């Protein structure tokens, strides 16, 4: 059980490392967003500070939305996905492994980098903590939900848009809770409620997504 999970995670991390791109693209994307916005918007500190949680959360969401499309694409194209469906191990576990690796590669760097970018945007100490926490809870949920969409749209014409249409409605609440948490903290209202909602979203995504994704994959291959 745990073996296969670890094997898949290890495989995908190694692959990501070999491709490097995937590890750094999100990082680069994130850094770019955070450095370009001040360039585009102008360097007024107050304006930037108010924008910061929104900008960071939106860019986290976009980074996930754009890259999660390709979660299964390479494995589908070269026949590896077939082999995964033929494994003796439960498919939901394999899926969970793939999503975990994906999160480690795209979500985690984001969570780790967020405080730095927060500082760049001159967010107060407390808000930065909340920002990291909200991203730490929110990005895994984004990855898990994205996995379902990626599996459903596998090999379809126009998969990308469909994916966006399918999962965006699920992403919006997470964005609102996430950016809301930081905003609420900055406004001195306490971020607790928002964070709880985020946590709940994450747990339910964790409970549902691997099974739904596995089912979607079998359907996509048939």
């Amino acid at each position: 059980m745990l073996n296969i999970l670890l094997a898949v995670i290890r495989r995908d991390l190694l692959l990501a490392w070999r491709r490097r791109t995937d590890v750094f693209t999100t990082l680069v994307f994130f850094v770019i967003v955070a450095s370009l916005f001040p360039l585009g918007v102008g360097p007024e500190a107050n304006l930037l500070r108010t924008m910061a949680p929104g900008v960071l959360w939106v860019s986290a969401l976009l980074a996930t939305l754009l890259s999660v499309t390709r979660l299964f694409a390479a494995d589908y194209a070269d026949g590896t996905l077939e082999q995964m469906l033929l494994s003796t191990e439960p498919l939901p576990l394999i899926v969970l492994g793939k999503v975990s690796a994906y999160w480690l590669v795209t979500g985690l760097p984001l969570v780790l980098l967020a405080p730095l970018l927060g500082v760049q945007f001159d967010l107060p100490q407390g808000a930065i903590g909340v920002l990291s926490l909200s991203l730490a809870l929110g990005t895994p949920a984004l990855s898990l939900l994205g996995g379902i969409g990626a599996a459903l749209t596998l090999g379809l014409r126009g998969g990308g848009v469909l994916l966006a249409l399918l999962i965006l409605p699920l992403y919006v609440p997470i964005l609102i809770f996430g950016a809301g948490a930081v905003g609420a903290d900055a406004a001195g209202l306490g971020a607790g409620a928002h964070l709880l909602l985020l946590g709940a979203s994450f747990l339910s995504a964790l409970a549902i997504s691997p099974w739904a994704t596995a089912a979607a994959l079998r359907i996509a291959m048939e």
Partner: protein
Amino acid sequence: MLEVDQLSCMRGDVILFRGLSFRLEGGSLLHVAGRNGSGKTSLLRMLCGLMLPEAGEIRWRGKPIRSQREEYHGELLYVGHANAVKDEFSPMENLRVACAVAGRDVSEDQALEALGAIGLAHRLELDARHLSQGQRRRVALARLLLADTVPLWILDEPFTALDVAAVGLLAQTIEDHLRRGGSVIYTTHQDVDLEAPTLQRLDVGDFAPC
């Protein structure tokens, strides 16, 4: 072991074959023949459970394969058209990872031996992106050498891109497996002589509607 009962296959709105039945016992070899596009690959994918038949049933040891997915997968090895070889991995990594994902653990030494036997000893650490077409196919086929305990092999055009030496080696491997009591289902358009205790030939075209 494997029983196929009145199978039909439909792609888009074309019926490729219907009413296809056969039985396969341990130690026997089944050559699935047919013209390009007649439905060989579709049939093999159905036998693996990767595709749903339009009608009919596939049973393994008496039970429908869909009701015992994980057990069946443990007794099955499929090598498809696609090599399932990752450009970014070396042959070594490819082989070990493929086995791990399939749920079979393989030690480095075993993998080394298999890759050596299939003629990749001098390219163990090279990224698969640089391999020649035949070398990539060999990486995919190296899995066979580590699967002598798996009773059923399903091979879709295993001989493509292989040179004469490799074709001979693969034929040898298949024959060994049959002698061991395993069964093999394969397709090919090439003339390869395989010796088997029982040899069946199935032309998918015979089951095409009118």
